[in-house]
């Protein structure tokens, strides 16, 4: 498969309506991310920021009511979760899942191998060096390779492990869903540095966050404010500063948005269909 690179890469979300268990979460969301761009999505709790990331990844609990998600101009809404991943989408999850008995090394190796064509072979020595380098860059400590996936990891370790996987898998578009939660100041800086190093024309980034602090380390090209399931305002640095100082009430007032009694939707388990 030949992917578009650099500025020709696009991830476009068009007039997307998404529900979960009959609750409409996204209500006509539009967003276009080009290769090399970094977009920050901010907004109050329960406005659908994580839903946006999950639906792009193909989480089976969410249902697209209408609209489309286009990768390089082609719809991916009928693609399975793993197909989307292999097409270059990545989601650094807010709550990374623990998989007992499966080592980090075996997992990442399997994820790298599954991206290879049939006539390609994993060069194990090179892979080990890359894994160790990524592990060192993120100060994950020795023995990470042999630890079971996310099991017994601190909150910060889990988030850094998500970035490690991102470094190893070289996605084309990555959603980082509240990657800053659970990180102390030093770890946040480290994650910020590592993500910034990954920035290139071959990577489009979508950062979902509540706080300015992450954006101190990863500079976004665009800042979007999301309220009631859609993006209501787009700007740059000035938006971050104002949100940090005044919250979101001014946006609602300025745009005449009425309060909705929305609570964040928590996913316990999801069905097996995908």
């Amino acid at each position, binding site marked *: 498969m030949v992917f578009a690179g650099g500025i020709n890469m696009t991830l476009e979300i068009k007039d997307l309506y998404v529900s979960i268990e009959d609750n409409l979460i996204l209500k006509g969301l539009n967003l276009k991310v080009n290769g090399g761009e970094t977009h920050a999505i901010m907004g109050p709790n329960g406005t659908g920021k994580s839903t946006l990331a999950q639906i792009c990844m*193909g*989480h089976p609990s969410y249902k697209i009511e209408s609209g489309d998600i286009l990768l390089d101009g082609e719809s991916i809404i009928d693609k399975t979760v793993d197909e989307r991943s292999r097409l270059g989408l990545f989601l650094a999850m807010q709550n990374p899942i623990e*998989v007992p008995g499966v080592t980090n090394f075996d997992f990442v190796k*399997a994820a790298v191998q*599954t*991206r290879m064509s049939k006539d390609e072979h994993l060069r194990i020595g090179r892979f080990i060096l890359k894994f160790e380098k990524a592990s060192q860059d993120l100060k994950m400590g020795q023995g990470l390779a042999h630890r079971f996936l996310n099991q017994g990891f601190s909150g910060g370790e889990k988030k850094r492990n998500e970035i490690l996987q991102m470094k190893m898998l070289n996605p084309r578009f990555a959603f980082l869903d509240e990657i800053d939660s659970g990180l102390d100041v030093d770890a946040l800086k480290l994650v910020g540095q590592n993500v910034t190093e990954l920035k290139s024309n071959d990577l489009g980034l979508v950062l979902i966050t509540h706080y300015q602090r992450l954006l101190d380390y990863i500079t976004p090209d665009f800042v979007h404010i999301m309220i009631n399931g859609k993006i209501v305002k787009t700007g740059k640095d000035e938006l971050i500063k104002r949100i940090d100082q005044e919250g979101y009430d001014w946006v609602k007032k300025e745009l005449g948005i009425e309060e909705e009694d929305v609570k964040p939707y928590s996913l316990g388990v999801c069905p097996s269909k995908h």
Partner: protein
Amino acid sequence: MKILQFLKEKKTLVAFDNQQLINNAKIKIKNNHLDFTKENDYFVFIDNYDKYDKLSFNIEKDINVRIYLITYQNKNIKIEYDFVLNESSKLELFTNFNTRKNNDLDLKVNFELSENAYLKLMNALVYNGNLNLLTRVNLNGKKAACELEVLNIGHQNNNFTVDQFVRHLNKSTVSNINNSLIANQMAKLNYSVSGFIAKGNELSKAHQNNKGIMLSDKCEIEVEPKLFIDEYNVEASHGAAIGQMDEMQLYYLLSRGLTEQEARSLIIFGYTNPFLSMIEDKDIKRMLTSQITKVMKEKANNE
């Protein structure tokens, strides 16, 4: 006697059937009694044996041994294994029971532990047939301790009935039981796990951990963890977590590009890997890995 090829090269092999005995390890064997008096790793291969209905293994005082016990049967059989661990002896025992013709196996495995004796039992049950297994451990001496690790993969229409009894019969005795159970197709795995701490045996510890994964709608796993405690100053816990494959784990692996089959295999590997990693001998580990792969592939082919 059809000895597995890799075992033929082991210098400490003890192999026997009803007619023949190979004793490369030079251990003391008299009738149905095997005496282990030297520290070593031993490979005991028993082929289609029913000369006696009981085999006894004696581990001498202060001796540390590791025994890999592999058996093959061609017919339905009832047999009992007795292990005596004398004072301060240590036994690491790997067991692997096999059948060539889907036979039924009725098995009793008994352990008697003296003071300071330590037993680690690694019981790999990838048996292709019906199995009744009774494991009894008596912690007779002070500070006797045991760890029972079971990996049981049931497939086809196998019935496994496993009873585990650990009796704490002295002070400061310790038992840890970890059962990892995988059922697919129409297999039924029934486990009864019992720990007894008799009165006066203070500072004893009894822990049981059971986890099971069901890979089809027609298989069954039933676990009854039980603790019978007649002493206050002890530590004990038990638990059982049985269910279908965790869908969130599956989603997580899929989101990294693994196909559904790859993701499912990796999650199953997560059940088997901790057990496999405890096996020191590479050949034995390879043998068990091959057995596991074979039964898991069998599932894939039938689907």
